[in-house]
């Protein structure tokens, strides 16, 4: 039973992404939205532990929220897939349930 987790705060503001990574089962997915898109940027102090988590968990980031914050898709960590709202909807249908980390 694969779960989609959404995280809407930066890894530098709240501990929700780290909590989510520690709780998420292998084969589940994490979608970064709203201020959570900051966590997807390559080269930050958090990038290494996100890359490590990607061994077991698929990572996605919401493109419109990324661009709204002045960040381009070529700056995201290798392996994180950029999706639009249509992709967001698809992720919710492809997973059995959705946990919004708030």
């Amino acid at each position: 039973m694969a779960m989609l987790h959404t995280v809407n705060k930066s890894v530098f503001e709240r501990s929700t992404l780290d909590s989510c990574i520690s709780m998420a089962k292998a084969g589940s997915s994490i979608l970064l939205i709203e201020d959570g898109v900051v966590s997807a940027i390559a080269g930050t102090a958090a990038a290494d532990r996100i890359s490590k988590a990607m061994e077991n968990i698929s990572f996605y980031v919401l493109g419109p929220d990324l661009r709204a914050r002045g960040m381009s898709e070529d700056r995201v960590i290798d392996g994180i897939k950029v999706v639009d709202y249509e992709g967001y909807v698809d992720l919710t249908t492809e997973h059995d349930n959705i946990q919004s980390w708030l």
Partner: protein
Amino acid sequence: MDQDENAMKFALLINEGPYQHQAIDSAYHFAKAALDKGHEIFRVFFYHDGVNNATNMAVPPQDDRNITQQWSELAKAHDLDLVVCIAAAQRRGILDENEAERQGKSCANLADGFRISGLGQLIEAGIIADRLITFGD
């Protein structure tokens, strides 16, 4: 736009108010994308500060989005069921005509397309919908 066998029923839970958090905007874009893909939005439930999205007394600047109006129009276009939690609404001064009269208030302020009901509507949405998505802070 095609309605196919992959179409799902969605329920959305909104826990934050307008112009302070992105939750309601994210929910709106999600709802539009889901509807465009042929999915059904079974219900949108407004809870906690989320009930503040349902007031028709807000007058945002003309160059900004009118969040309440966006939802009223989406509800009209797609026959959406926008349900406001009654206990959360009464605390925050969101009243339909019946409640305004019952509480002796001078006016009602529930926007078009919204209705006031109880928490049972959220539970029912969770049971009936294929996916329940929470938008909050």
